[in-house]
């Protein structure tokens, strides 16, 4: 029996699933103060707990898109929401750190919902409206992290067990709703086509193209950074600005947790909510034919979108260095203001990427999305570790910008350099060698 749905209805469903998944994903970070206190964790242990939220993302996300193509997004979403909901409930029981760590590790795989939802939305909207649709989906869903940091400590105080239990139940309810009213694609033909292109050979071919690698690194320094900061920032503000918070009057552990969570959410809210706006700016770049960077490709129709992506990379790097200086100054207001602008620039990066990726890889959008959205989350694992391991807690942001982001930008320049036709098939080995049906070049770069 065929189910019917509307594109706006399916978009709301996908965004709702993503929102709940994101709240669950980062609920551990929202209660980092309570967990630190209960189990007596040190700064380095907090960094490990924060980064563990990302450990399983690269592997799971890579295949989540393929699974969504194979069985349809509603079934894939129902499965993801069910098992993460069950483990969230399980994490609320038990009283030792190992149990909590392992169950929360599984709950954190809720982040794979991003790829499932992207695939779901892609199956319902056409090319002309894809940018805005994906922007609204991802922008609304991503705000779950900020919402969790802002609201969970207010609702539950230090009682993280109740929060985990209730979120688990909510995920189970949503799994049923998703399964009942979710429709895999706008028509049967589109759903069948998605099933056909989800092959291992296609995946291997796409992930070895220089363009996909450059875009993956760009997404690692924007979305990877966003999720890394989501996990890291509540603990950072609690530790780095403890004196300032106490001077204002936040002396109890619970008050500190709420205050730190409130300022940490600034990054997440800005990085999430400005994301659709970035797609709009990408359209303006295209319309005005803006190509400000002389060393990047200039004369193809899609060149302005590439320039917008690179502009965002530069902006993120600058703001990371400024966040270090703001932290070193000890000025909480300045730090939060810089953090808000950093979130703003991160949104430029994430939004601009998915204005470009589906166009460059229009033959295999699911596979490309799974790779770019999946492997890039490794950034979310590495950054909190760097932030926690450098001797001065403020220096980590500039360290990551200089040692990682600048090389990423150089790779991006090489992949999309001036004076060269954008060759999406350039990479390790030819399409014949991989045995795929044909080159990606058939794609219209418009």
């Amino acid at each position, binding site marked *: 029996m065929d189910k019917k749905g509307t*594109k*706006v209805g399916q978009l709301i469903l996908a965004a709702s699933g993503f929102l709940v998944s994101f709240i669950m994903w980062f609920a551990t970070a929202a209660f980092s103060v309570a967990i630190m206190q209960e189990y007596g964790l040190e700064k380095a242990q907090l960094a490990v707990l924060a980064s563990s939220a990302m450990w399983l993302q690269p592997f799971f996300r890579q295949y989540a898109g393929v699974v969504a193509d194979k069985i349809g997004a509603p079934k894939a979403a129902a499965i993801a929401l069910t098992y993460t909901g069950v483990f969230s409930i399980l994490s609320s029981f038990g009283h030792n750190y190992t149990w909590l760590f392992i169950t929360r590790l599984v709950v954190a795989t809720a982040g794979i919902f991003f790829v499932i939802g992207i695939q779901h939305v892609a199956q319902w909207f*056409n090319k*002309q*409206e894809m940018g*805005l*649709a994906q*922007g*609204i989906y991802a*922008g*609304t869903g991503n705000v779950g992290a*900020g919402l969790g940091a*802002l609201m969970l400590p207010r609702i539950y105080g230090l009682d993280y067990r109740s929060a985990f239990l209730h979120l688990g139940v909510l995920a189970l309810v949503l799994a049923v709703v998703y399964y009942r009213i979710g429709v895999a694609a706008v028509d049967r033909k589109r759903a069948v086509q998605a099933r056909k292109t989800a092959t291992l050979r296609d995946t291997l071919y796409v992930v070895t193209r220089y363009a996909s690698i450059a875009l993956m690194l760009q997404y690692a320094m924007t979305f990877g950074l966003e999720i890394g900061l989501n996990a890291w920032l509540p603990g950072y503000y609690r530790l780095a600005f403890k004196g300032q918070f106490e001077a*204002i*009057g*936040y002396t*109890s552990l*619970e*008050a*500190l947790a*709420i*205050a730190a969570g*409130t*300022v940490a*959410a*600034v990054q997440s*809210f*800005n990085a*999430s*909510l*400005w994301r*659709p*706006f970035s797609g*709009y700016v990408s359209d303006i770049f295209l319309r005005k034919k803006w190509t400000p960077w002389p060393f990047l490709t200039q004369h193809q129709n899609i060149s302005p979108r590439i320039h917008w992506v690179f502009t965002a990379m530069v902006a993120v790097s600058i703001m990371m260095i400024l966040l270090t200086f703001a932290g070193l100054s000890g000025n*909480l*207001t300045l730090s*939060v*203001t810089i953090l*808000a602008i950093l*979130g*703003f620039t991160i949104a430029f990066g994430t939004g601009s990427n998915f204005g470009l990726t589906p166009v460059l890889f229009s033959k295999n959008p699911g596979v490309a999305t799974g790779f770019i959205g999946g492997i890039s989350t490794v950034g979310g694992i590495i950054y909190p570790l760097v932030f926690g391991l450098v001797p001065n807690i403020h220096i980590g942001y500039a360290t990551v910008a200089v040692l990682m982001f600048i090389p990423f930008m150089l790779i991006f320049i090489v992949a999309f350099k001036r004076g060269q036709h954008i060759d999406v098939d350039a990479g390790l080995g030819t399409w014949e060698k991989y045995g795929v049906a044909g080159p990606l070049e058939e794609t219209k770069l418009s």
Partner: protein
Amino acid sequence: MNNTGQVEQEKQEGWYKYGMMFIFLEAFIALAQTVFALFSTLSGAAG
């Protein structure tokens, strides 16, 4: 088919217009949350 296409196009434009409004609503929420976070935290009300 053409007629169907035209109706579809009109629907798309309507949806897109509301999408644009949604963009600016989200941007407003982001700004409001930033101001709220700064004021509530610095005034001591956040805890």
